[in-house]
């Protein structure tokens, strides 16, 4: 279980999170939704320890908020797909995939390339030369290579063609069913509702409500409240 307990977060002196509580159980997908600037990305960064935080972050019962980022990632098998990809543009596709991975994880490279065949011919090309969508695949590939127990996804569909998004979500659902806990940030509530078990609505850096996606009515209500529009 990945648990956040009244987590506050700051950028410099600007507070962005005002107490976030969150639970992601293995085998479950939780979607964080909210308007631009609600603090979704910051929440993920807080889990990794990449912003200054207060409050408790626990993984499988162990408090990790004092650990440096790389220890959280390695010891607790957390992987992230950053917003806007977070690739290392100077590195090749292959290097981007394996960076930070240990030997065993590297061995899984074939599996990942199978998932994204377009990347196979381009392993030695610099990622900055890939198309936007291809870059997103690399970002996802890097996270999957680590065979994470908890996967943090920050708008993985950003800039992807529908066909790829569908594939990715299918794959995520499969990973989830194999016991991975997924924390997903998604702009489209419809999409989020279709893959996640739970929707968490963030507002101004705090959890506004948690909605079970099976409850269609409350999902619709959430959409209306949060975004002021009715999605089609």
């Amino acid at each position, binding site marked *: 279980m990945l648990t956040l307990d009244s987590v506050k977060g700051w950028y410099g002196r600007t507070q962005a999170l005002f107490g976030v509580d969150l639970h992601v159980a293995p085998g479950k997908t939780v979607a964080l939704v909210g308007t631009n600037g609600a603090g979704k990305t910051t929440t993920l960064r807080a889990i990794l320890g990449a912003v200054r935080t207060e409050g408790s972050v626990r993984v499988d019962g162990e408090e990790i908020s004092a650990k440096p980022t790389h220890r959280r990632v390695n010891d607790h098998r957390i992987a992230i797909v950053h917003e806007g990809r977070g690739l290392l543009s100077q590195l090749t596709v292959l290097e981007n995939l394996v960076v930070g991975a240990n030997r065993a994880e590297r061995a899984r490279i074939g599996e990942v390339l199978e998932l994204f065949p377009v990347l196979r011919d381009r392993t030695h090309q610099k990622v900055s030369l890939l198309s936007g*969508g291809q870059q997103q695949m690399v970002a996802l590939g890097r996270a999957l290579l680590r065979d994470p127990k908890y996967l943090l996804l920050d708008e993985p569909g950003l800039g*992807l063609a529908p*066909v790829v998004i569908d594939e990715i979500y299918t794959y995520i659902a499969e990973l989830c069913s194999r016991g991975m806990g997924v924390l997903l940030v998604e*702009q489209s509530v419809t999409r989020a509702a279709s893959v996640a078990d739970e929707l968490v609505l963030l507002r101004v850096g705090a959890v506004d409500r948690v909605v079970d996606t099976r409850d269609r009515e409350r999902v619709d209500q959430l959409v209306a409240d949060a*975004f002021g529009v009715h999605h089609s």
Partner: protein
Amino acid sequence: MSRTATHNTVAPAVRTEGLTVRYGAFQALSDVTVSLPAGQISGLIGPNGAGKTTLLNAISGFTSIAEGSVHVGHADLTALDARRRALAGVVRGFQTVRLLDRESVLTNVLIGTERLPQPSALAQFFGLPSQWRAGRRDTAAAAEVLDLLGLTGQAHRRVDELPFASRRLVEVARVLVSSPSVILLDEPAAGLDQEGRQELAAVLTRVHHNHPSTMVVVEHDVDLVKSLCSYVIALDSGAFLRDGTPAEVFGDRQVQLAYFGRAAGADA
């Protein structure tokens, strides 16, 4: 150098002929001949890596063309570099937002007025009257765009302090401020929330209404394309696939296979 303002003139049609772009052995665009109708908003769609951004690059002069030509109206722009194409009225936004991070929103927008006739460097440096006139004109244009995009309140904030959505809008504002005759936008709605997208679509429609231009929007959001564009071009694997009205293109079997990975019949 002639710096004739191309704004306020009638928006020209944009045509590419036999456009081929190569990166080493890889062919990112092969023999693409498309024409974007004058004064309309066209959508450019296609799976990832189809060559949409490359096509925008080729039209705006940001990549070298191996074969083929680019025409705007009656002018052949193929030989011009990116800057001259911008001055000729072809202005683009970037898929990854590129801003002057340490500067204010206003400065970021004002840089877009470069296309308008600017006094010589000396006149600007010594603050001659022509500089003040140009300055007032530019500020007014920026104020109008900021207002249109709802950024007026943020005009003096540094852009790196802004949330991503606002940064996207600043990028769009920079393109719009000089009312170019050809506007190329690369996924302007990516990363915006539902509300933001709808607002953006409304703004673009309004801008287009006020200053008719030939606008091209690359987008993956099908709803947005449908609501915004009157014409759509689909690319796949660097080749032209289909064009027509949104209904025609999205209804096309090949497009559906390439783009949605399934034909329409399968998903009712």
